[in-house]
């Protein structure tokens, strides 16, 4: 990739996205209101958050080749620990964030060190097991900390005013954009650094790397901790953007699977692909629900309108079709078109 | 050189495994009847050639059996044209008994159990023994018996004497002679004494291509040639 494109494209994209909240432009069908309306900005912020989180999963799966079924655990860690600290323990924002940051490094360090002792499907199952344990823990609601099935509301007192309230949605939007930009830069740095190049070699042929005398374990652990840390950060941003507090939905295996779907739809290992996949998936998921209520779909015979009313059905089917016909994901399709 | 009655014709066979171009245009013929030995140094692609013929590895090129092109068919269909395969590592099913290992191999209505039990009486005695508990030599017998069970006109046999004690090597050679009376055998073998005993034709592979093809006696009678082509002194291991 030419140096100019390498630096310019992300900067241009960033600039475009940064300016969106200033545009009073209507995009029919895609959004329910003009671009600078809180509803649309809130949706865009959510899409951006998931673009970032999908990218963290791509670092693990697409780039390092580690199929994890437990990535949701780290996202949920950010969500729940922050909510509990702010609401139940009534800490201030800064101490909360500091503690979350430390925990977000220590937990994946520990769990990753254990999980990475095995590879392949075994690794996937161990990560699933740990995430399940997390889910069970949240459901059990020890000492009423997690709110169990009903989730936990967020206490807004500790959060700076600039980030609270409908009128400040554009600040939350910029926060989400900043998060995504940071993830992008972090992943890009990780990939291009010398540890990153070792990771690529590991994905291609782990034995050859061992033969040179490098220990794949350390590099994989590094990628694991980085990806998990960034996912935890994503959880915190998600919490602020959505504003409704913690819900057990984010601890489920299904949540990790949707991240997998996002990455594969966009194109695993292509970075922009993961961003695109996360963004599009979230957009479709949110918008298809309201589209289904629209008269156009309701007019269809029940056989069609019922399944189409469930965004997850459309997304799951789309995913299956993509896997069949476009294994490189949308990014792969894009490359083919551009050639 | 190309006899019109060649039963098997391999033409310009290419196989890539990972980064390496293992077979770079292997071409040879196997005349009907008797044993043709496929020779070559270690790692040169002899096993890969057999596997490519069966479609067990992705390949480019042509493989014909009695004039029929095999490369368009899936492996099980290729085998059903009448090929018995004795793989390099025997690949017997360890969890199944000897008798079950043979039964799985049954293809049509008349499996030749009498022949198999005549050649390998020990297998009859150990019919209910789990194949995983057999010795290497006994497993080799199961592998060969499996291939002989159906009246296959072709047998692809990969290093049947590898790792066997001399007495067993002789037994296997005798079985191969018997098999050659009933089918055309393409034999990969490093043990030149066995080759000298059973084979009429030889094909030598090196650098991913065939470098020599001709009568076995002619090659084996020329130690210098043997040394240069195979890098050994023309005796058994």
């Amino acid at each position, binding site marked *: 990739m030419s140096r100019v494109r390498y630096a310019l494209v992300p900067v241009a994209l960033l600039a475009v996205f940064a300016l969106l909240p200033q545009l009073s432009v209507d995009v029919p069908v895609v959004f329910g209101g003009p671009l600078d309306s809180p509803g649309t900005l809130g949706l865009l912020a959510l899409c951006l958050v998931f673009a970032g989180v999908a990218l963290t999963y791509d670092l693990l799966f697409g780039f390092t080749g580690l199929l994890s079924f437990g990535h949701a655990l780290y996202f949920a860690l950010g969500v729940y620990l922050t909510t509990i600290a702010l609401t139940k323990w009534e800490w201030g924002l800064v101490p909360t964030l500091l503690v979350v940051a430390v925990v977000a490094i220590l937990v994946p360090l520990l769990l990753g060190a254990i999980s990475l002792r095995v590879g392949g*499907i075994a690794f996937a199952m161990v990560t699933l097991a740990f995430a399940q*344990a997390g889910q069970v823990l949240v459901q059990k609601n020890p000492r009423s900390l997690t709110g169990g099935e009903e989730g936990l509301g967020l206490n807004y007192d500790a959060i700076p005013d600039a980030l609270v309230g409908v009128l400040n949605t554009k600040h939350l939007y910029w926060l989400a954009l900043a998060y995504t930009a940071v993830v992008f830069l972090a992943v890009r740095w990780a990939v291009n650094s010398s540890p990153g190049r070792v990771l690529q070699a590991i994905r291609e042929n782990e034995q050859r790397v061992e033969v040179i005398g490098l220990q794949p374990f350390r590099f994989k652990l590094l990628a694991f901790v980085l990806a998990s840390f960034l996912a935890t950060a994503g959880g915190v941003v998600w919490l602020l953007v959505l504003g409704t507090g913690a819900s057990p939905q984010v601890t489920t*295996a299904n949540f990790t699977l949707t991240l997998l779907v996002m990455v594969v739809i966009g194109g695993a290992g292509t970075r922009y692909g993961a961003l695109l996949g996360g963004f599009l998936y979230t957009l479709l998921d949110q918008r298809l629900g309201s589209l289904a209520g629209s008269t156009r779909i309701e007019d269809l015979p029940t056989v069609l309108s019922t399944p189409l009313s469930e965004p997850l*059905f459309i997304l799951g089917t789309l995913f299956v079709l993509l896997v069949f016909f476009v294994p490189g994901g949308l990014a792969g399709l894009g490359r083919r078109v551009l050639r | 050189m190309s006899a019109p009655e060649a039963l098997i014709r391999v033409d310009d066979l290419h196989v890539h495994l990972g980064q390496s171009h293992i077979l770079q245009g292997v071409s040879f013929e196997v005349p009907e009847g008797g044993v043709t030995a496929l020779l070559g140094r270690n790692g040169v692609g002899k096993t890969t050639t057999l596997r490519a013929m069966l479609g067990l590895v992705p390949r480019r090129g042509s493989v014909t059996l009695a004039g029929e092109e095999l490369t368009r068919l899936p492996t099980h269909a290729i085998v059903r044209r009448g090929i018995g395969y004795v793989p390099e590592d025997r690949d017997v099913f360890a969890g199944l008994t000897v008798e079950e290992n043979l039964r799985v191999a049954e293809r049509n209505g008349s499996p030749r159990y009498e022949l198999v039990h005549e050649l390998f009486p020990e297998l009859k005695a150990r019919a209910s023994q789990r194949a995983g508990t057999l010795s290497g030599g006994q497993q080799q017998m199961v592998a060969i018996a*499996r291939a002989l069970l159906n009246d296959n006109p072709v047998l692809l046999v990969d290093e049947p004497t590898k790792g066997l004690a001399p007495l067993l090597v002789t037994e296997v050679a005798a079985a191969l002679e018997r098999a050659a009376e009933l089918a055309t055998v393409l034999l990969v073998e490093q043990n030149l004494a066995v080759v000298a005993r059973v084979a009429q034709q030889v094909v030598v592979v090196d650098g991913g291509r065939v470098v020599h093809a001709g009568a076995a006696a002619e090659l084996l009678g020329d130690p210098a040639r043997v040394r240069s082509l195979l890098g050994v002194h023309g005796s058994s291991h």
Partner: protein
Amino acid sequence: MSTFVLLTITGLGLGAMYFLIASGLSLIYGLMGVLNFAHGALLTAGAYATWWMSTHVGGGPGTKLLAGAVFGIAVGAALAALIELVLIRPLYRRPVEQVLVTVGLALALGALIEAIWGFDARPFPVPAWLIDTTSVLGASIPNDRFVEIAAAALVLAGLTGFLRFTRYGLIIRAGVENRAMVTALGIDVRRAFTLVFALGGAAAALAGVLSGVYYGVVDPTRGTSLLIFAFIVVVIGGFGSIGGTAVAAVAVGLLQQYTNYYSSGLGDLAVVLLLAIVLLLRPEGLSPKVAH
């Protein structure tokens, strides 16, 4: 003592359900190398098919349940076979894509069921005698537990017999060890694949029926919540081994019951941690016996 008996039999009942859903998963991964994430959806589909049929036949709950179950199991088997033929078989040499497809399918099927019948739990037709209890060694055991255990035992016997005495069973046992060699013997393993998928689907559907009886209701999340336990059982018991699956299912069911009782609810956690421990101690338990 009576508590112990109650816990044990209930644990065995749970284990029965786990065995039913895990057996298909085990064979499918053992033979085909496919980690079938859609297996939970097959369970849910079977359960809902049973419920649906039961609302369309007359008679007492016993008749409804029976008619429903027959229909549900048939649906499970047919759906599984269809999935294998249309989605799995074309991706034969692409194992990663096969797994991904089952993931997408699981999400889509789950959403479809939810779209048609909604989130809410649907009541399952359960005849009174199943809800009644029988006294065993001083404990009052709900009769459905016995039915579950009996059903699982029957399926275990049936599967073992099938594998031991039929030709397809022989092919499957050989294929679990070395699929390539089976092909090299002239056998078209693909038919065995479809058969194994269909059997797995039938067993999963039966598990769905039994889970409906156990919990009294069906809901769209039933399949996914039980699928996790199925994975745990299969990993502990070894892929491709029916006997191993049975033993592991019993172990997991019992462990869950005892731990839940004696530690007020940590049974689920204990089981999940058991999975992690087993995996770390014996990671090879996960690779199919011989390379595909």
